[in-house]
């Protein structure tokens, strides 16, 4: 590797790491425990973790099969479908929130239907989960689809020639092949759900204990108490780092 590349590499690292370290300089260690244990912070952390886990589960149950279809199906128009799947990655999250609101909100076409059976999504924890899933699921779909394409379909074809039905092949061949990629994709999906902000505040609103996740609480608190907001930011950074460090390295280091 050319030595010159170390310079931009170091700059790139500094660009990511230094601001986070800057957060640390703003923290008052004496106040930190009290700030982190405040009901607002704890409620938000709890809500974030729970909704993040549910969103990740939902992404797996729905996005997993979608990845399989994208990787294995020869349906026409699949390219367009893939473009739509990737859309949430590039859309500003607020756009996602507005889209959800105008579909599932009280005046939205689907929202009106739901309203007639007594279901209202905006301002509920379910809305938070939907917003997070909307934004985070593409990470799972891309991760899995990439792995499926890399693995190819040969093992599955062999299994089929040996007489295994589709379900048996899926369980015994496809899923085990996917496990490493599945792990890293799930982690990424969860991490993205944890950090979700724009779609949530637009679609679900912001109420402590119900819809105010950690990112929303940080934004809300920053209006009046910057120290408390910094403390919560630090909490989010630590949780996100924990998640990524614990579960991600295998995939990053290429041991797929």
């Amino acid at each position, binding site marked *: 590797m050319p030595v*010159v590349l170390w310079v931009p590499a170091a700059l790139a690292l500094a660009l990511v790491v230094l601001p986070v370290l800057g957060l640390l300089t703003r923290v008052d260690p004496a106040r930190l425990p009290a700030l982190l244990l405040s009901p607002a912070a704890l409620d938000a952390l709890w809500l974030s973790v729970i909704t993040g886990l549910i969103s990740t589960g939902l992404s797996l149950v729905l996005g997993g099969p979608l990845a399989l279809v994208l990787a294995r199906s020869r349906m026409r128009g699949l390219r367009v479908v893939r473009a739509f799947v990737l859309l949430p990655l590039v859309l500003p999250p607020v756009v996602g929130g507005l889209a959800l609101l105008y579909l599932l*909100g009280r005046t939205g076409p689907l929202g009106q239907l739901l309203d007639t059976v007594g279901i209202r999504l905006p301002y509920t924890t379910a809305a938070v989960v939907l917003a997070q899933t909307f934004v985070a699921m593409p990470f799972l779909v891309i991760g899995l689809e990439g792995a499926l394409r890399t693995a190819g379909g040969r093992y599955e074809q062999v299994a089929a020639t040996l007489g295994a039905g589709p379900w048996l092949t899926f369980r015994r061949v496809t899923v085990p092949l996917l496990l490493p990629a599945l792990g890293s994709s799930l982690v990424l999906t969860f991490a993205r759900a944890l950090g979700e902000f724009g779609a949530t505040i637009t679609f679900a609103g912001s109420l402590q204990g119900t819809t105010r996740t950690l990112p929303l609480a940080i934004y809300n608190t920053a209006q009046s108490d910057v120290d408390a907001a910094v403390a919560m930011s630090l909490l989010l950074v630590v949780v996100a780092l924990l998640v990524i460090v614990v579960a991600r390295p295998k995939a990053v280091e290429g041991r797929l």
Partner: protein
Amino acid sequence: MMAKLRMIVGALVALVLLAGCGQAGQQSQPQRTVTVLAAASLTESFDELGTRFTRQHPDVRVQFDYQGSSTLAEQIKQGRAADVFASADTKNMDKVRDLVGQPETFATNQLTIVVPPGNPAHIASLPDLAAPGRTVVVCAPQVPCGSATQKVAQASGVQLTPASEENDVKSVLQKVIAGEADAGLVYVTDAKAAGAQVQAVDFPEAQQAVNTYPIATIGAAPEKQLAAEFMAFVRGPVGREVLGQHGFGTP
């Protein structure tokens, strides 16, 4: 290797020089700029005041940055270079008291109920907001419109159970416009700015929480003289007229 390095360094130097030239070019213009940090609720009225001020001072450009008062106060504390600060409440002006000149009140504002056109949930008073089955959206207590909401609720003994506590008044408005809320509490001026998209329902309890807007020149202002002139302009007859048109009370 060294040749390549030299090329990269050369390109970087050229880039820096070019950027420098760009800035020098801007400075050589005869125009002066006064930078005004103003609360988001002042957007419409200050835009108009800026135009009128420039009409009186053709060589001056008024540059506005509208954000939440607390965000702006924090930026001033972090050393942002600007000339004037207009806050939506005294609390945030107090936060930067050491960094600004003498603050003067230039406007007042109070809350009103907004409902979607036609008032589908038939809301006529503040207690109506507390009736079961109504979806009400308010500002979070951390922001000025939220602390006003809290004050009004406490003074009138109405227990509000909002569906959401938004971070700024425009988000409350947006939820009412979208029909996602039966009612919201916003400032009179915001209701006015939203025009026919919402209907305002005034309530007497709003008198309990009249918000005062202070304006001050910033201590480290690059354009001290202009800053003072703009502040006087806002508090003068033109300022009163424009602010009044947008629904503000003027002291």
